[in-house]
Structure formats: C-alpha cells, structure tokens
C-alpha cells in the first residue's frame, strides 16, 4: 500500500479516534466541574464550621463584644490543611471585634442572609469566603454579629485539578489503547483485501479470467465483481482488436502474394539488367511485407484474449524443432549459411501451442540467418537442463553487445548497424510467445564468446 496515499486504515482510524479524543476532552472538562463542586462543598463546610465555632464564642461584656477563646484554640480553628484561614468578626454596627481587619465585606445584596458563600480578592489573591450572621443574644433584637472566614481559592483549585488529572490519565490510556486496537483490527480486517491483491499481482498478463469472488469478504465482493466486469470487457476488447489484426493480416496476404508472384514473373521475362535489379528489389520488399504480415498475425495470436492462447497440447519440442529447422534449410542455404540441428534432449514434451512454438523458432532462426554473414553457422539445439526443456538457436555472427541484449526483445527495436531487412518484430514475438507458455527467453553470447545464443527455457511440467 502506498504510504503517501490516504489509506483506508488511516481514514477509518481518524474517523474513530477523532471523536474518541474529543469525548475524552469533554469528559475531562465535565470531570473538572464535578470535582470542583465536591471540593467546594467540603471546603465550604470546613469554613462554615470554623465560622460557627467562632460565632458561638463571641461574648458580650457590658457593651463590648469579644471573642472568648484562648489564642491556641483560635490558631487551631483557623488552621486549614494548607495554610491558615483569614477571619474577622464585626459587631452589629459594623464595629471591628477581632481577626484580619482588612478582609473584604460580603456582597451588599447578601446582608440579610444568615450564611453566604462568596468569592473575593484578598492580599492579591482570589479567596473563597463565608459570612455568617449570629444574633448577639437570641431574641434580644440587638442585631447580629458578622463572622467572616476566608481561604485562598488556589488551594481548592489545585485539589480539583489533581482529582481531574487522576481521572484524565486512565481515560487517556483507554483512548490510546482503543486507537491501537482499532489500528490492528483494521489491519486484520484488510487482510482479506491483501488476499485479493495477491491474486491480481500473481497473474500473468495473458490471464484475463475472472477473480474468485467467493473468497473475498462480503464487503469486498462488489469490488471483485466490478473488477471481473472490467476484465471481461477488457478481454472482449482485446479479442476484438486481435480479430481485427488477424482479419487485416489475412486480407493482406492475397495482395502480397499477387505482388510477389508478379515481381517473380517480371524478373523472368526481363533481360535488362537495370530493370531486373529494380524488380529484384520489388520482390525483396514484397517478401518483407509478407514476413511482416505473418508476424502481425502471429503476434495477434500470441497475445492475451486470443482464442489461440488456450490451444495447448503435449508437444515434443525436439520433433517440432527438427521439422521447423528442416523447413528453414533452403532459405539458410540461399544465404550461404550452414544451418544445423543438434538434439541433446532426454525428454522434451511440453504443454504448448505447436503453431506458436513453430513461429517462435522460425523467428529465432530467421533472425540468426539475417544477422550472420555468409559462410556462418547457425545451430538449433534442444537439450534438457535440470528437468527443463531448453531450445537454443546459436550463431557465430557478430553477436549482440551485452547492453543491447534486453532491448532486442522490444517491439520495432533495431540494433544499430543491423540488417535493414528485419522489421523489429521477430524477437518481440519470440518473447511474447515464450511468456505465454511460461517460458523465459534470454540472449547471450554463443560458445567461445562468439556470436549469439538465444535460449528459451520451458518450465518443467507440473
């Protein structure tokens, strides 16, 4: 899978883990609120308790109000978990009794309430405070004493934050684990797709048969079906194209035959040397056209989608090679080339299309004859190597430079300085046919590092 592309796995992961992270953040905020509520409730109660204790101990002596508690007790009362509380007691008329004199007053609109909690600012810090009104003497109508107790707000914020953090970390781990699980889960789920991918990858380019739909998971089956539909249309289009090439080649054969025959007849009738040479060239050109037509036809047959590509039968390569070589001997002799045959095979039966193997070997021989100078030797050899049948055509011509040896199998490729007679299709056809038969073909130097040896290796029968 291409890592640069937006993979299905990444996309699914994003769609699942994105909301998970959002939920985690929301849940953390909610947790914080809840924690703060509980912390406030507890801390407020502690403040109130202190305020009540203080209020209970305000005494009246004459007109003077005072806090009737020894200093150590006061210290104990106002000590919180993290530092001391601030406090102040004021009389009914607002007169200062005891405590921190500059503690801010409670909000004005809460003057009538018995207990009021409020937030304020004291000594450059936010504080949480409670105000409590205690009657000087119940039922006396003398008004109420105002007790205020305050505490640094940061304490509770810290505490609430700690609670929040302790909830947030395990939740975060949960999100992480879910993400990992999803990542691997998707990977496992996609393995079914990998199987389909492998099936496509391992195919030869001539195999356009449908993929096995039943092996794919239900979600992927429509995809496989669509792919099969495409393969079918491709197959039909290829078959139509090949039919066209085959028909065209067939149609061309008769006019080319006419051209060749007329050129030959004219050559016999003409005694004029110059005209005779022209006719000879005409005849040669007609020969090339004939060969090209034949090669196009072979190519159309060797390609995928052609009905020919399935016409396999057991073929004795040594017999077929021998017959084909015999057919080429007259043409080789005409070019003063010693064409021979060498059978060193043990068993050479291969499942093949005999027509195409004959064409393949014909092209190899034709090629060798064309590129070997007069007086040269061309040998067709069949041998057995590690159970494989190997068909070779070796010549002692100029050879092919190592860097050209792969290129010669390309369509319409012509070697620099090569014979002008070839059309550059012969070896392309050879490779096409070899591949169609699961065979390999390579060009290498001939024996003694001279000339060229074209080697076709068939796969051993299964």
């Amino acid at each position, binding site marked *: 899978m291409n890592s640069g592309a937006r993979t299905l796995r990444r996309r699914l992961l994003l769609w699942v883990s994105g909301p998970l992270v959002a939920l985690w953040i929301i849940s953390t905020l909610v947790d914080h609120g809840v924690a703060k509520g509980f912390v406030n409730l507890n801390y407020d109660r502690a403040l109130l308790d202190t305020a009540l204790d203080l209020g209970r101990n305000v005494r009246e002596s004459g007109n003077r109000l005072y806090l009737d508690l020894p200093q150590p007790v006061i210290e104990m009362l106002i000590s919180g978990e993290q530092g001391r509380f601030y406090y102040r007691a004021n009389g009914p008329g607002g007169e200062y009794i005891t405590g921190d004199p500059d503690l801010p007053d409670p909000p004005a609109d809460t003057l009538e309430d018995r207990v009021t909690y409020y937030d304020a600012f004291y000594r450059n810090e936010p504080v949480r405070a409670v105000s409590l009104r205690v009657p000087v003497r119940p039922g006396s109508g003398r008004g109420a004493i105002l007790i205020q107790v305050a505490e640094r707000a940061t304490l509770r914020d810290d505490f609430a934050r700690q609670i929040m953090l302790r909830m947030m970390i395990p939740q975060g781990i949960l999100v992480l684990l879910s993400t990992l699980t999803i990542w691997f889960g998707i990977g496992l789920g996609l393995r079914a797709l990998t199987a389909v991918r492998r099936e496509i990858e391992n195919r030869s380019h001539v195999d356009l048969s449908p993929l096995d739909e039943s092996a794919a998971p239900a979600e992927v089956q429509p995809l496989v079906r669509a792919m099969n539909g495409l393969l079918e249309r491709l197959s039909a289009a290829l078959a139509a194209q090949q039919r066209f090439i085959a028909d065209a080649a067939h149609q061309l054969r008769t006019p080319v035959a006419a051209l060749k025959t007329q050129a030959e007849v004219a050559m016999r009738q003409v005694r004029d040397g110059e005209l005779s040479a022209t006719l000879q060239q005409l005849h040669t050109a007609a020969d090339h056209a004939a060969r090209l037509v034949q090669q196009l036809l072979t190519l159309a047959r060797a390609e995928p989608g052609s009905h020919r590509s399935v016409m396999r039968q057991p073929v004795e390569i040594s017999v077929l090679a021998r017959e084909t070589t015999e057919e080429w001997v007259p043409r080789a002799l005409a070019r003063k080339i010693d064409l021979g045959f060498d059978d060193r095979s043990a068993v050479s039966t291969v499942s093949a299309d005999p*027509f195409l193997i004959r064409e393949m070997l014909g092209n190899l021989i034709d090629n060798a004859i064309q590129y070997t100078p007069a007086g040269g030797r061309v040998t067709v050899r069949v041998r057995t190597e590690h159970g494989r049948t190997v068909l070779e055509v070796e010549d002692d011509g100029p050879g092919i430079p190592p860097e050209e040896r792969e290129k010669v199998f390309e369509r319409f490729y012509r070697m620099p300085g090569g014979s002008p007679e070839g059309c550059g299709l012969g070896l392309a056809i050879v490779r096409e046919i070899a591949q169609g038969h699961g065979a390999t073909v390579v060009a290498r130097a001939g024996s003694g590092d001279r000339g060229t040896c074209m080697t076709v290796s068939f796969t051993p029968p299964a």
Partner: protein
Amino acid sequence: MRLLIVEDHPILADGLITALKGSDYAVDHAATGEQADHMLAAQHYDAVILDIGLPRLDGYEVLRRMRRRGSKTPVLMLTARDALEDRVKGLDLGADDYLTKPYDLPELEARVRALIRRGQSGGGAELAHGDLVLDTAGRRATIKGAPLELSARELGVLEVLMLRVGRVVNKEQLAEQLYGWGEEVGANAIEVYVHRLRKKLEPAGVSVRTIRGLGYLLEKAAHD
C-alpha cells in the same frame, strides 16, 4: 499438361497464369467457385490450384463436389489462412497439398510438378535435375544421356533426393524408402550409400549436401 487455376484475385491469378504458361502448361482460369465447378465437370485437368476463399461457392465446396464426381485430379489448395484446422479440413476433403499465401513462386511450381508426377504414378516418370535424368520406371539414371552405374539402393536414395530437390531429406525418410528393397537399413549404411552416390554424381556437378543433424539435400543445379 492442362492446369486449372481457381483464384478470384485478378492480379494474383494473372501472375500465376503467366508464370505457369511460361513453364509450358496449358492454363485455364476460373474466378468463381461456380465457374470452376462447371469447368471441372466438363474438362479433364492434370492438376488444379484451388483458392479456398472464393465468393459464394468456396474452395472446400468445389473440392467436395469434384471428389463426389469421382475425380482423382490432384489439387493444391491455396489459402490466406494457416490455422491447423483449415489445413486438416482441406486435406480431409481430398486436397493433395496445401500452400499458404504468400508463397514463393518456385515453391509453388515445384509442388505443382510433384502433384502432376503423383497423378501419373504407376505409369512411371522421368525426374530431371540439370543434366541428370532418372527414369523411375526403368530404374535407370543418365548424365547427358550417358548411363550412370548405380546400385538399386543408390538409385533409391537418388529418387528420394530428386523428388525433394532443394528440401531436406532426413535419414528416416531414406531408411523408409530403402526398407522396401530388403532388410532394415541402419543410419551408418545410409551414410555409406550417400557417400558412394555423391562420388558418382560429382563429375556431373550435382552435389548432395549434408545438413548437420538433419539429413541430406540435393542442391538445385546452378542453371535450373
């Protein structure tokens, strides 16, 4: 010798007619299957060159009707198709030989000669190759009219080679031919016969070439 050429492509037909007339055959031409059918029913031919792809009545049908009438005239089928099934179909219907377009004219002429010879077999025929003449009925060979001393087996080898001039004759084919003359013949024996024959033909400028790993070939005479 009278030949019928059945071919609908006018230029190809014209070329064939000119070429074969040049070889001293009497040549008739039919451009359609129906015309060919009529001509074959009315006239005796020594050989027929029959194209398969004809309009309306195709070559197969012409051949079928011809054989139904009991005609034994040898037929060389010409076709623009070379699929194996087509070839088999033609031969099954009674064609004697088969050539795929485009062919080499000398090849076609050689096949026609071979067909005519086969049509006359039993009567015996003379095979000529340059100055060398082989009388297959009289079992005699001459060079420029002078008799050539050949054993029966050497004559057998020569006959096979002359019947397939310019084409490879393998040792199996030679052994098969010689088998008719007596006991089975080994590959070594064949080499000996060919060696002797070669020596006797040398003065006439006729050469029997050895084709590596395949067999022998009687080379076309220089002025043939």
